[in-house]
């Protein structure tokens, strides 16, 4: 589903990813590990279509993503890839429900109401739908962010340090949630984390150091 061929990426003149190559199949749960600054978040941004590589090719579902016109790339990434940020990135001025609907509004895709309801129930946030995000706890906000990432039934969910701001109890619940969601929705998860407990659930580990993949094992 995802294939990196000798991909490099940088911020300005600072190289972050250096000649990375790997491929990932569907329904996996991939864990990205590595020290801070190793390039985990940058790799997720490249996968999400937010940061063009300076070198190499990135194929998603057999399409060279960055060769697509920008509108097509946006469309593809919005519909097929969901992103969960470490700091949630929810809009405090609109309700939880509207935050979750944002990808469907942006990609002009109608929302499957039954799926939406089941998603809220799965994530345990059905009672918060009409509330505003800044009234929720960190774990609840993280679940809302997950719901937003999953609302379009993406093939891939990217999560950047999803437990980074959560206590251990909440982290455990979130990990259970990932597993449960993957089981029910058969979605590919790529999770960047320092959390060993979270890393332990992965079906595959990609270890990055200094912008390069130093370990790729199942």
């Amino acid at each position, binding site marked *: 589903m995802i294939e990196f061929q000798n991909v490099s990426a940088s911020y300005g003149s600072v190289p972050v990813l250096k000649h990375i190559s790997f491929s990932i199949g569907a329904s996996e749960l991939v864990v990205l590990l590595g020290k801070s600054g190793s390039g985990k978040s940058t790799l997720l941004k490249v996968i999400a279509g937010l940061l063009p590589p300076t070198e190499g090719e990135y194929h998603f579902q057999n399409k060279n993503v960055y060769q697509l016109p920008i509108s097509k790339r946006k469309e593809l990434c*919005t519909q097929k890839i969901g992103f969960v940020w470490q700091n949630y990135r929810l809009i405090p001025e609109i309700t939880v429900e*509207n935050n979750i609907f944002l990808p469907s509004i*942006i990609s002009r895709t109608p929302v499957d109401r039954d799926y939406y309801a089941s998603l809220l129930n799965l994530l345990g946030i059905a009672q918060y739908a009409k509330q505003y995000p800044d009234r929720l706890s960190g774990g609840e906000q993280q679940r809302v962010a997950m719901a937003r990432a999953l609302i379009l039934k993406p093939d891939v969910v990217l999560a950047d340090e999803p437990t980074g701001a959560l206590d251990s109890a909440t982290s455990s619940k979130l990990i259970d949630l990932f597993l449960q969601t993957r089981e029910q929705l058969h979605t590919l998860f790529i999770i960047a984390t320092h959390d060993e407990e979270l890393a332990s659930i992965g079906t595959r580990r990609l270890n990055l150091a200094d912008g390069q993949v130093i370990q790729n094992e199942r």
Partner: protein
Amino acid sequence: MKDNLKLCSLALSRRNRPFWVTAILIFITTTLQCTAISLISFHQIRLEQARSNVYGYFYSLVYQTPADYENQPVDDSYGTIQVVHFFDDSGQSVRIGTYNPPARDLMYQGREKIDLPADRNSCLTTRSFAAQSVNADVGTLSFGGMSLVPVRTIPDIGYLWPKGESEILSDMLPPDIWVNAVTFNELASSSPAQNYRILLLNREQAQALKDGYISLPGNSYINMNIVRDANRYIYKIDRAFSLSQLLLFPGLLLLLLMGYSHYSRQRYAIYSDLGLALPALTAVVRSEFAAVSVMPFACSLAAGGIVTFLCTNGMYPGLQIFTFSGYFEILKYYILVYFAGLLIGMLLARRTVHQKDRIRRKSGHRSRLPMKGTAYILFSAPLLLLLTSILLVVVSSFTSVNALNEAVYTERYGQIRQNYDFEITYEDFSLDSQHYISGTDLIQKESSAYGAIPFFFSNHSGQLDHIINRIEELDGVQRVDTFYINMNTLMAIPETTAASEFFERVFRSPRYFPDGPFTDLYVPEIQSAFGECVLYCYPDTYLTSIAGQMDLAPEALSSVLSGDSVILEAPAICIKEEAENYVAWKRDTEGDIVLNDPALDTYTSVRLCIPQADRNLEGFIPQEALTLLGARLAMPEIPVAGVTNRNLGWFDINDLERGEYRVFASGTFFKKHSIWHEANRVRIFLDEGADADYVSRQLQLLTNSIPNVRIVDRHYNLEMWHEYRTLEKVVYVLYAVLSLGLLISFAFSISYCYWLENQRNVTLYRDLGITARRLFYSLAAPFLLFLLLFLFLQLLFEHFALSILLVGWQHMSLPLRIAVPSAIFGVYAALFAGALGSRIRELFRRQDYYE
């Protein structure tokens, strides 16, 4: 599009405070603007209507030679006047013109109606012409074998009549004699002089001609009196004010939109990261701009209309001034510039989105600068400069208009300030044929107890006396004050002074003494000489009020009221030498009043006159000037309780060229000296809520048989005056609120943007242990330093640029010029510091805020 609208509608969430705060700010400020502008404009419309009803007007004249209008039909509706130069028996040129009611209405609109009887021998004459040329014995004029009977005199040059240099050079002055068209044709057929005609046009007619591309031959002249008044005096806000408002409108909107986009940039970044393409994001931002601008502005227009409607109906009950079409006509340019501002904002939205993207990406890799945000300082300071300049223009505009209006009230329309409703004046200057000064019957001579012989003479005939009682009985009349005016009173002065050329000119004037020099004819035995003054008898209440203004001692006031002394008002003086007129005094650079020309003492010809309205702005004549005046013209040798050099504000327009002392005395003084004291001016005060129209009609009925009576209806003007003063205060308050609102919104918007720019840094500094005070200084210092720099630049700009560009600015004192920008910058800095301080306090109070 639909989805963009959906995204836009999300911005309308009640939790989206930036949206609603921006909308409310736009609503408040634009409502204030719309209300203030429309109220001022409607009031101006009302005042212009009132003024034209009282004084009448016309804006343009077209003078044509026979060649100009040959073969063209004469359109009487424009007020055509035909004029012929006729040479009388002595070879003097006399201008005879046709009397045309439309022209009369344009010239004397709202004033006393002067009608010319249909009789072919009847005519009207100007006053000076009557004094010089009418045969007093037979009371007729003879021209071309025709004997004309003057039935009425009219002012030489009406207030409404232009007498510019062009007219004088072209000898195109108003006629001396006005006759019927039939009579005119008879006279014109025997005249060798060229005919020409005068078209009088009011503004609408002139505009209609221009709009219709009608080429009207002839020389066109503007009635500068009216134009000057319209542009400079009387309730007119100058053009700089309107321009500043037109600039302020879109500027304010742009400022608020930029602030709004700053507040919303995190949301836009999330939209972008969730896959919204830049064009679509730009469309969303534009939609939000439109929503946040149009909705409150529409509400503002409605609210402003309602407030204006209620205010105008409250102020002018019964007068339907407000119309919605008129309201939008007034505001149309403001609406246009507002939407132009919105358009610019929408065009900038694309740039804003790109910048947000750039800023967001940069924010991941912040620079090492301890504080960021100089861009906001540079962004805010020029806008602050603009705002300050605009407010200065407003202040200077009001200052200028007020100064000019005060001068006009004082000098030209002084009566407006008097608190009465109607005034009836028997005009001494209206010299009908039966009232020419001739013979000793018009002179009363009496011995004086002061070693000289004062003479008082007048042509009173007690015309008003017999109706005063009837006026007092009218319903609604509260009080009637009676005034006596002796226009030509001779007061004893030293002989040396009397020998001056000034008195020679006065006493040998053929205007007053057509049969020969006054002294030769009537008082040859007088050894002393005389000075001329106008003796006014004022009601005791007025004298008490005047004494209060002069700080007159109670004993002195008592002596005035008992008729033992008088109050002398020294006139402002002009010096005449050859053809030049000078105002004798001026203010020097330090504000002191000094002689305008040090060579004054060498002048041989001195003329007293009251300066024109715009000349007396420099102030009143100081004591030093009076002393110097006394060296030439000694004070009258009658007991003077006090001398005032303040203009007491009561004289007629026709008196402008007359120079004299004015002496204010009580009725008792008149009686003690056996001076004739028939009333020639009556002021009528109405009860509150009285039917002014009824009283007006009754006054017309009571006086219509009396010639030379002028009724002035100040009821209208008083209302107008008080309403204007009230409105002026309202407008001041509105603009004070508006300015403060702008400063508040401006300071908070910029401080918030500045905060956003630095929030990660300041959170870090907080966590590293910086104190709140130090954090505040670190954030505020660069901003305040820049403000000081811009204040300095502002003052330089105001001093060098505005003093050249703006007349109003010149009326502002130096401390005010510095105080206004300093106050604005100071208030702004305080608000900014307050907003910043509150955020820092909040940051320290909520330790987890940015966790």
